[in-house]
């Protein structure tokens, strides 16, 4: 999960693969993705027990809100190919 100077820099990266073409995210969307509600409570005394467990659902909801619903982003298995 990296930051690049621009998309064309990522495409020139030695580890870039064709599948990773769907891996781009704007800086604004990234800040939102990693700024969901639970992230704002990392210094709260009950973060681990109360806030961290909410993180996965928040991430899924945020990714859906920006249209990143593919298995690549949602972390779900790829559909079988026939």
């Amino acid at each position: 999960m990296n930051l690049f100077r621009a998309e064309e820099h990522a495409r020139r990266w030695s580890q870039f693969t064709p599948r990773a073409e769907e891996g781009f995210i704007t800086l604004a969307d990234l800040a939102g993705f990693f700024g969901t509600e639970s992230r704002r409570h990392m210094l709260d005394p009950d973060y681990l027990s109360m806030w961290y467990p909410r993180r996965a659902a928040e991430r899924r909801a945020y990714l859906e809100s920006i249209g990143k619903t593919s298995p690549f982003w949602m972390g779900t298995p790829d559909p079988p190919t026939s």
Partner: protein
Amino acid sequence: MADPKLMDRAFQRIMRSLVQTGRAPHYAELGRAMGLPAEEGRALLRDVMAAYPIGWLHPETDYIASFPPLNNLPTQYRITVGGEQRWFAQCGFEATSATWLFPGQTVRVDAACLDCGDPVTIEMRDGRITWADPPEVVGHLAFGFGASRGRSYYL
């Protein structure tokens, strides 16, 4: 598994140590801070890491390597706050979350672009991006989330 309240306290001790000093405590320090013998501190650390699996210990050790959004092991994502470059982010994505650990302060992220080595810089304050250089800075997920992708998505 340790008592949840004790785990919450231990988590905060680790996170706040990272924020205040730039490094995570050793389990012996964690145990002492919790009023526990060192060996119980080690067990407590392992319980906390098991409950926070987005972080990890360095393989075959009890040293905290990663405790996101920050990293105890240096990465290319250098974090500067108040003019001090004391921290590292786990990855480029987690770097954008470090802002929530420093409320009311400007958090600067400096990295080298993996393609050309030229600088990538962003600044954030209370979750808002206040500066990006170049303005075209973009995030990139190389291998996809999930174990089925077969590669570490932190790369």
